[in-house]
Each structure stands twice: as C-alpha cells, then as structure tokens.
C-alpha cells in the first residue's frame, strides 16, 4: 500500500513536471527572438482559434441559455418566498459568473477541442508526421504546441465572458415569461453584486484553464507512440486529467480570491 502510494506520488510529480516543461517551452517560444516560422505558427493559431472559439459559439450559447434559465428561474421563484429578492444578483454572480460559467466553458472546450487536439496529435505521431516535421527542421514546440496553447487560452477567456453574458442576459429573457421581476431591477441587482475582482478572477480562470487543457491534451497526443489504438486511450486520459486539473485550479483560485 505504501509502495503503491509512493509510486503514484512519483508518477504524479513526473506528470506535473512534464506539463510544466510544456508550459515553459510555450512561453520560451512566445518570447524567443527567432522569426523563423512565425507566420506559419500564426496561421496554425488562427485556425485553432476558429475551431476552439468561433465554432464553439452555438453550443456555448445553447448551454449558457439553458443554465441561465435554470438558475434564474430557481432564484427568481424561490427567493421571493423567503423574502430574499435582494439576493438574486448575488446568487447569479456567485453561481453563474464565478463558478458554473468558467467550469462549464472549460468542460465544453475540453470535450470539443481538447479531445480533438489529442486525437490529431496522436494520429500525427502514428503517421510519422511529427517525425517528418522535426526532420525538416520544424520545431514541434513552435509549430504544434505553442499555437495551440495560445489559441486555446485566448478562446477560453473570450468564451467564458461570452458564456456569462449569454447565461445572465439570455437566461433572464427566457425566464421573463415566468418571472415578475422587471429587467432594470434584475440588471441593477447583478451589476451591484458584480465586482472587478469577479471579472479579473474569470479572466484568470480562463487563462489557467486554457493553459491546462491545451498543455495536457498536447502532452497526451504526443505520448502516442506506434499504434492507432493508443489514440482513444490517450484522449480519454487527457479528458479526465483536464477535468480534474481544471477543478483543482478552480478550487485554488476561488480559495485565493474569495476566502
């Protein structure tokens, strides 16, 4: 038992070391003075942003609307019963903007883009595309990893704010059918409860979650060695680890910012 625990701890430490190395390499590629491959890397970044950010808008909108509808309907119908109408703004800010918005956005990005990144890189590994790139002098860190990390981070931050806006405003419009609270009262309550810290924390979560998801998914894609059957295995592991690490980061950020 102690041996197993020790081995798991060492494995976990090595895993986090590998992920940290990817983050370091990405930062080094971002700030390195070499101009070679900048345009090619920019094209990869834009293509990844289109897929991760723009193409995700319909599904983000639908899920944000449904979440907003549920939370606003529950808050708007239950709070007046206990005389808590004044708390509706706080409930929405705490539940949607601080917690569920960032987490659900991260889960959607993991499900759509994270899995796609792991699958793509895994298939590239098996087909020797990565080796071929290295052999023509193209660094995987610059052409493969850095553009994906940058694109996922930027997309994640934008999608989180978009998710919050759609969930709060769209959710209210739909819930208006049932609610008796006028929009200006609702908007005022949300605005009063929302602070600059909430906006900054959302941005910080976007950057942390985006970095974690992109790095984990790239790492597992590159772990594939020689068989296509390894690709779904690594994709599943990448997805589970991404979700777990996003939850851990969420706890750390929440405790740091609000405790």
């Amino acid at each position, binding site marked *: 038992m102690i041996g197993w625990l020790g081995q798991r701890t060492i494995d976990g430490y090595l895993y986090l070391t590998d992920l940290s190395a990817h983050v370091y390499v990405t930062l080094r590629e971002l700030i390195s003075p070499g101009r070679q491959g900048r345009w090619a890397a920019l094209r990869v970044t834009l293509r990844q942003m289109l897929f991760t950010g723009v193409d995700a808008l319909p599904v983000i909108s639908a899920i944000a609307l449904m979440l907003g509808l549920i939370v606003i309907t529950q808050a708007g119908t239950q709070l007046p019963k206990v005389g808590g109408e004044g708390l509706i703004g706080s409930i929405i800010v705490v539940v949607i903007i601080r917690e569920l918005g960032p987490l659900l956005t991260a889960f959607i990005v993991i499900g759509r883009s994270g899995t796609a990144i792991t699958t793509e890189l895994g298939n590239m590994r098996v*087909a020797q*595309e990565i080796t071929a790139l290295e*052999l*023509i002098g193209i*660094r995987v860190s610059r052409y493969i990893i850095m553009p994906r990390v940058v694109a996922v981070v930027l997309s994640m931050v934008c999608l989180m704010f978009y998710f919050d806006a759609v969930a709060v405003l769209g959710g209210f419009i739909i819930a208006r059918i049932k609610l008796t609270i006028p929009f200006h009262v609702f908007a005022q309550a949300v605005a009063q409860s929302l602070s600059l810290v909430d906006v900054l924390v959302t941005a910080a979560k976007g950057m942390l979650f985006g970095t974690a998801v992109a790095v984990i998914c790239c790492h597992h894609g590159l772990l594939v060695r020689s068989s296509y059957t390894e690709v779904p295995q690594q994709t599943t592991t990448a997805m589970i680890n991404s979700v777990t690490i996003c939850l851990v980061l969420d706890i750390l950020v929440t405790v740091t910012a609000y405790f």
Partner: protein
Amino acid sequence: MQFAIELTNVQAEMDGEEWHVDFTLAVKPGEFVLLVGPGRSGKGMLLKLCVGLVEPAQGTVRVLDHDLATLDDEGLSELRQRIGVVLPQPGLRSNMTLYTNVCLPLVYHQGIDEEDLRPRVMPVLEALGLAPLQKRFPAQLTAGEARCAALARALVMDQQLLLLDEVMAGLDAEMVARVDRVLTAYRRAHPVTILATLHNPSPLLEHADRIAFIRQGRIEAMGPYADMAKTSDTALQVYLGSGLGGGLGSRLAS
C-alpha cells in the same frame, strides 16, 4: 570540411534484436553512398543516427562539421534544415495537399511568398511526375506517389546532404526511372552528398560512388559497384542484382 558524414565506432541498440549496430563510416562531400542489405540489418538505423533521431550509446557522429552530441534542440533544428530526409513512411501532413506539403519547409523556414513558390516547386513536381497530383491530399496518393512527394519536399530546400531510406520501395518502373533521373540531375546541379539505402536492385546502384553492404548492424563490404559486383558472397550478389545471371542493366531493362 573533410567529411560530410563521419561515424566513428558508433554503437546503438537495435529494437527487437539481440545484436547492436556498430558503424564506422566516412562519406566525403559530394559523394553518393548506397547502403544495401537485408531488412532489419541496421541501414535505416544508420540514417537515423546521422540525423539525430537515434542517439548512439557509444561513439561520435559528425554531420556537416557538427558533432551531433554537442547540439541542443535549436542547433539540431538548424542543422536539419541543411539535410533532406526521406523515411519509409513519408510523414506528409494529412490536412495539406501534396503541393502545400512540398512547399511547407520553404514557407516555414524562408517565408517565401506564393508567387515565388511556384517557380521553385513546380519544376521538382514536374520532374517527379507529381504535377497532375498537386491538389490531392496524402490519403488520395499511392505509397509510391507519397514517397515521391516526400522526396520532392526534401529536394526543394537545396540541401547539402540527402538521407534517403528505401526511396525506391513501392515505386512503379516509370517512377523508378524518374527518381533516378531527378537524383542524377540534382547531383549535377548541386554539390550534394547522398546516403541512401536499398533492399532491392535499382538503377541507383550504378550511379553510386560507393556501395556498402550491411548485415546484422555491421558494414561487411564497401567499394564501387564494379568491384562489389565481382564478389563471391551470394547474399551480396542478390542485393546488387548480380547473382541472378547477366548484368544489372539487362535485368532491369527486361
């Protein structure tokens, strides 16, 4: 530069084999050396050692005046821009057409515009018979066409060294003739060193300056084709195409 490639007592483990490779080889700039021998004899391993894909357990590998052991990632990437490599698996980007695959090193390393790309890339594609296939994706190509595309990608950068692993495998007779013509013309136009592997007789044998016969991770014989063809080693005769009666040229022609 005295040697384009210099391997000194280089030893490396061979996956799945009890023996390990042990090479000492020097290739002069501009020389064309062919490695022949059975599959899993270490020919591909020798090329991988030369391009830094495999690290030797012992010995030194010097390529284009660089000791590979002393190079960091960046240095190795810079060196690889001067080396064209074709592996048995072509490794073309599956989401790019044949044309964009061939252009990739030029676009990435030299940032060349589209209008300047075509005059550089199209002659290579035409010489290899790939021009009509330029808009196809790798999945729509035959194995031979994909290998020719990988060769085209290696040739467009005007490299100083070409490492070609089984470049003739899977090619039809016309493609073999085209590749032979292209490599001959390329050698005439560029001061390039070529190290290539073969496991079947090919017209390239007669164009090589030297031929090395590799078996079980060791270079067993080495010399010009004319000298090697006189060997009494029947295993070597098979790979040189001289053990089946008649000359190589007549058999290939037939």
